């Protein structure tokens, strides 16, 4: 247990908000690369795998940043 604890300690005293944003930006980069390569949107699983996190953790991270798609556009057109 001491070891688990030390392992965690070594890792991060960064705030969760900062860490979530970092993960989210990485995810968006992966998404972009994926679209360029495969010409379709990746699923959560495809991105999460590359980041070695769960799909659930990925959506949590992504919620921390403004996503770069204009949500209200289709509504007002």
């Amino acid at each position, binding site marked *: 247990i001491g070891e688990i604890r030390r392992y965690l300690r070594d890792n991060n005293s960064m705030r969760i908000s900062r860490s979530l944003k970092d993960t989210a930006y990485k995810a968006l980069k992966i998404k972009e690369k994926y679209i360029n390569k495969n010409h379709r949107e990746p*699923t*959560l699983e495809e991105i999460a795998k590359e980041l070695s996190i769960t799909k659930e953790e990925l*959506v*949590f991270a*992504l*919620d921390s940043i403004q996503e770069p*798609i204009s*949500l209200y556009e289709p509504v007002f057109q």
Partner: protein
Amino acid sequence: MELKIPSKSQNEAFARVAVAAFVAQLDPTLDEVTEIKTAVSEAVTNSIIHAYEDKIGEIIIKGKIYENYVVEIEVIDFGKGIEDVELARQPLFTTKPDQERSGMGFTVMETFMDKLEVTSEVGRGTCVRMFKAIKKRKSEGAEN
């Protein structure tokens, strides 16, 4: 799943993430997740702002997943209710024009989800029920 939260504005973000994490098990795309999150956010905001106004009440969010990749999300409150649901669902209709409300909440929900059902009783509360089919991926093997 079923989530119960007090109608405090800081819980809106939490509800949104909880629903997104729930839907994640179907392996949607980021866009699909964003659409569902946005719809849930509108429904929860309505319960906070319209249903309970200055009081703090309870909001229940239920999530169900059906065999055919369909997600059902219900947002339920026990607040003041809606007098004329038909009218409330019209684009731009709002009873709070003063508060920067755009009157587009229900329209956003309708646009981003496949189906929207609103039942409400004045003095009893409101239930917003939304369905969305997550596109089934071509093949499970196409992993790159």
